[in-house]
């Protein structure tokens, strides 16, 4: 639809017309601001913890574990230089061979969701699958944060 609109505007004499082809689905999925009636619906992006620890694929597991152990976290997201999610180190992985690299110890391709997913819908899916947390990324795979189901459930209860 937007390409036709762009051509139409050019036909009407506008000289600098851009077609944002991926359109609003792409914008909201990246966790960017929204206006309108749906803007008040809580989303995964609102609940996700953005302070989740990260490491690079080349870091030694022992070093990563040392860094994570001093926090309230028991996992670490492996990201590249663009903060694109490559894998996940859970507690068991963190406590494995300290000389292994994060890339060697990580679990590949963890499930991710977009920040504009409504929290209620996500909690329901997670309950069905028995999932305790989920990683939140933009459509490009860039890490936004990690959402615990428990946190989202508490939020839903408070709003009810």
């Amino acid at each position, binding site marked *: 639809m937007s*390409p036709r609109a762009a051509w139409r505007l050019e036909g009407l004499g*506008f000289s600098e*017309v851009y*077609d*944002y082809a991926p*359109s609003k689905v*792409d914008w909201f999925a990246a966790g960017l601001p929204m206006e309108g009636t749906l803007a008040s619906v809580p989303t995964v992006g609102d609940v996700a913890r953005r302070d989740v620890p990260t490491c690079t694929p080349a870091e030694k597991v022992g070093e990563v574990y040392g860094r994570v152990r001093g926090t309230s976290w028991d996992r670490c997201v492996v990201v590249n230089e663009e903060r694109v999610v490559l894998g996940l180190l859970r507690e068991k992985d963190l406590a494995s061979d300290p000389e292994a690299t994060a890339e060697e110890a990580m679990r590949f391709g963890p499930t991710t969701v977009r920040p504009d997913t409504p929290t209620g819908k996500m909690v329901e899916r997670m309950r069905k699958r028995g999932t305790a947390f989920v990683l939140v990324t933009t459509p490009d795979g860039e890490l936004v944060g990690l959402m615990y189901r428990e946190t989202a459930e508490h939020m839903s209860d408070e709003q009810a």
Partner: protein
Amino acid sequence: MPKTIFRGGVRELLKEGGAQLVDVLPSEEYAESHLPGAINIPLKELNRETTARLRRDEPVIVYCHDYL
């Protein structure tokens, strides 16, 4: 010829100031959700009168729902 633009480009143009966002979806869909600052001119209503409020000397970015 209209140029295709992606998220990063949209953000840059908006940051520079002056760019106008036009949501060409039906008004009900616009009311539900739209990009901040976007105005709504549904595709079927794009004509000289409805676009009169747009500045012709500034970039115009149009969008709809998704690629389709």
